[in-house]
């Protein structure tokens, strides 16, 4: 042993890793460090994207283009969408919480491919900086986050090419992360832990990662073709050269519709973790939750053309995609009612995490209803590319995913930092966010129904008052970030000591110290077969036959 030891330590690269706070700026391979890197990096981009949203709402205070020039508005709008989707929500709901929690949940000491994991994170900051710097160099892309040709071919090329490059890098990061999550969940489970005993977030991340691995490469290929059109003057998507713009739309939405589920399925999983803990009840309908996620994964891959009902889609396609989209409401509805049933009769402690989770449920059902409405061709043809669509998807991605990100930060902060967040500031944050969000986006339904087009710096003067109300809501949302920022920074130094398990939770990440040690546990990882066994002795729960409903009926 003493002879072989020097040989084993020969690859000295791990010893280069710093151990203090500097490791958060290093190529660390610790999944908890990488998770936090994703979270903080994502939040920085959220502030940048939020500032852009502020600029957009300021411009829209008046019907004329006065705050910024029209092409600058287009650039800001494109950057806002791209930053919020690819640099904030996707990396945070997948990368941040996935990296932090999944190894705990499967009873592993790290992800399956730690170095690949670090590579996946470190693709993000350069891609994001490149994207934003394009605004200062030659002007950013102007064709929206969808980059539809011929608009993306005719607008200035440099910004568009930088946009394509950074989205390709972010897509690569996403694929590497997805492969890692699939391998970790399927291959790295500790012995004795069955798939149907995993916490729900694992299932959500498994479904999400399948979507990432299947659909993101198609976007990559499409963007490569688009860059050929721009740089080499091929004609894939250029009607003037015999190309076909609708093919771009099909390929783009083959990724970008699943991208909605890539943003919202992990949020479903996180809410399913938070609610049972604070309601002291088992998660209602575990098995149906699992099948719902998998149904959403399958259906999510075959509904993309509902974004294209006005793109000359033939009737059979409209019929198929309308029906397929309406079907998604079924598994989503199952999950919605399961959360309500989890809350029902529970001993709810109405703290910030639960408030944000409940805010998510309310917002998400509103966004879901408008989503089903938008899937109907006769309605969609009228509101396509209006503010109704803007309102709908902000209810999904902000009211849904971002609310859950905040809920998750309130829930897991004590584990990550080891100190509690301030509850009063948290509730103030929730109140400001919830009121501001609904004030900002609910009026946009009305704007869209009355015909205000999206993505334009100027609008008909009759919409001025409602736009100003919406902008006031946006201001409230901006202000709501302040108590949150103060809370997370101050609590890291002055917050009450959390202890290992302040919520008395049963999932494995709470069964270690706060913050957890390197390698997650001193000693063997615990075997948690009933992660939601609240209010019942663990051995009375038979997940295979009962799941939540029987427990609920028996009054537990």
């Amino acid at each position, binding site marked *: *042993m*003493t002879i072989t*030891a*020097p040989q*084993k*330590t*020969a*690859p000295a690269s*791990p*010893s280069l*890793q710093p*151990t203090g706070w500097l490791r958060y700026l290093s190529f*660390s*391979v*610790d999944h908890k460090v990488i998770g936090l890197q994703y979270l903080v990096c994502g939040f920085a981009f959220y502030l940048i994207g939020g500032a852009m949203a502020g600029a957009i709402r300021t411009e829209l205070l008046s019907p004329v283009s006065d705050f910024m020039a029209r092409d600058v508005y287009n650039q800001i709008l494109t950057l806002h969408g791209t930053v919020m989707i690819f640099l904030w929500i996707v990396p945070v709901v997948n990368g941040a919480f996935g990296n932090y929690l999944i190894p705990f949940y499967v009873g592993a*000491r*790290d992800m*399956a*491919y*730690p*170095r*690949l994991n670090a590579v996946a994170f470190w693709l993000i900051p350069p891609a994001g900086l490149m994207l934003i710097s394009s605004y200062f160099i030659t002007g950013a892309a102007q064709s929206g986050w969808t980059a539809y040709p011929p608009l993306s071919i005719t607008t200035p090329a440099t910004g568009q090419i930088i946009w394509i490059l950074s989205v390709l890098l972010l897509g690569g990061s996403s*694929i590497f992360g*997805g*492969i*890692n999550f*699939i*391998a970790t969940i*399927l*291959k*790295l489970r500790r012995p004795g832990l069955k798939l149907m005993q995993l916490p729900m977030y694992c299932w959500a991340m498994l479904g999400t990662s399948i979507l990432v*691995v*299947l*659909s*993101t*490469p*198609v976007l*990559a*290929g*499409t963007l*490569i*073709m688009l860059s*050929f059109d721009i740089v*080499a*003057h*091929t*004609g*894939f998507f250029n009607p003037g*050269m*015999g*190309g*076909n713009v609708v*093919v771009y739309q*099909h*390929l783009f939405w*083959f990724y970008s519709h699943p991208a909605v589920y890539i943003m919202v399925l992990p949020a479903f999983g996180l809410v399913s973790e938070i609610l049972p803990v604070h309601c002291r009840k088992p998660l209602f309908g575990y098995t149906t939750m699992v099948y719902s996620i998998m149904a959403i994964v399958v259906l999510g891959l075959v509904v993309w053309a509902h974004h294209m009902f006005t793109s000359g889609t033939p009737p059979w396609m409209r019929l198929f995609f309308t029906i397929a989209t309406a079907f998604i409401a079924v598994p989503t509805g199952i999950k919605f009612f399961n959360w309500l049933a989890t809350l029902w009769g529970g001993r709810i402690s109405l703290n910030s995490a639960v408030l944000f989770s409940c805010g998510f449920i309310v917002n998400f059902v509103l966004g879901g209803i408008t989503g089903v409405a938008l899937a109907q061709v006769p309605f969609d043809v009228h509101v396509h590319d209006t503010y109704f669509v803007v309102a709908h998807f902000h209810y999904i991605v902000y009211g849904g995913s971002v609310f859950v990100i905040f809920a998750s930060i309130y829930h897991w902060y004590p584990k990550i930092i080891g100190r509690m967040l301030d509850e009063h500031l948290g509730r103030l944050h929730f109140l400001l966010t919830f009121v501001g969000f609904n004030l900002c986006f609910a009026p946009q339904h009305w704007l869209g129904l009355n015909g205000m087009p999206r993505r334009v710096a100027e609008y008909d003067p009759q919409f001025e008052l409602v736009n100003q109300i919406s902008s006031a809501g946006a201001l409230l949302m901006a202000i709501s970030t302040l108590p949150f920022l103060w809370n997370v920074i101050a609590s890291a130094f002055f917050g009450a000591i959390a202890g290992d398990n302040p919520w008395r939770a049963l999932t494995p990440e709470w069964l270690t110290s706060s913050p957890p040690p*390197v*390698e997650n546990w001193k000693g063997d990882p615990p075997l948690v077969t009933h992660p939601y066994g609240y209010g019942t002795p663990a051995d009375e729960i038979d997940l295979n036959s009962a799941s939540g409903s029987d427990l609920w009926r028996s009054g537990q």
Partner: protein
Amino acid sequence: MTSLTPQNAQLDHIDDHGAEHGAEHPDHRMFGLAAFLVADAMTFAGFFAAYLTFKAVNPLMPGAIYELELPLPTLNTILLLVSSATFHRAGVNLRRQNNERCRLWLMLTAGLGLAFLASQMVEYFTLPFGLTDNLYASTFYALTGFHGLHVTLGTLMILIVWWQCRTPSGRVSASNHFPLEAAELYWHFVDGIWVILFVILYLI
């Protein structure tokens, strides 16, 4: 770690991926490669879908030339299929600790890969259309070019493996044959893509 030298002490609190823990975990690298190849296949699927849709919806513009000859691509198909077999022989010989034979088969495989690339180049230079001539020409070059990039990478991998199994105690050996198997799986994948590409681009 029986003797706690300073080096070891440092490693202990750094992370769990130092060499000392490597042996504890089962090897999931092949699973990761397979998942990556699924993603890679989806990129090709996107290109194929685009090509087939163009074919179904967009007629060739008047005066545009898009003619493909069969002999050279058929030869290419044979080259790649044979190279899959030779790569397999290399793997068999490595596991039998017959490194010399293994390297011979690897060199043959790399040679076939290079022959494929050369033949592809010949085809490119003799075709009557260029990249930007028309929609089909562009798609043809994009698809075959993207595939050719994969063949190039695969050939480089073969040459690296060939270099690393010089001696039975080298980095690639009978006891550590993952690099060879990974390159082999990738190579079979690239061959399979070519067969689909051949059918879609040349035969239908």
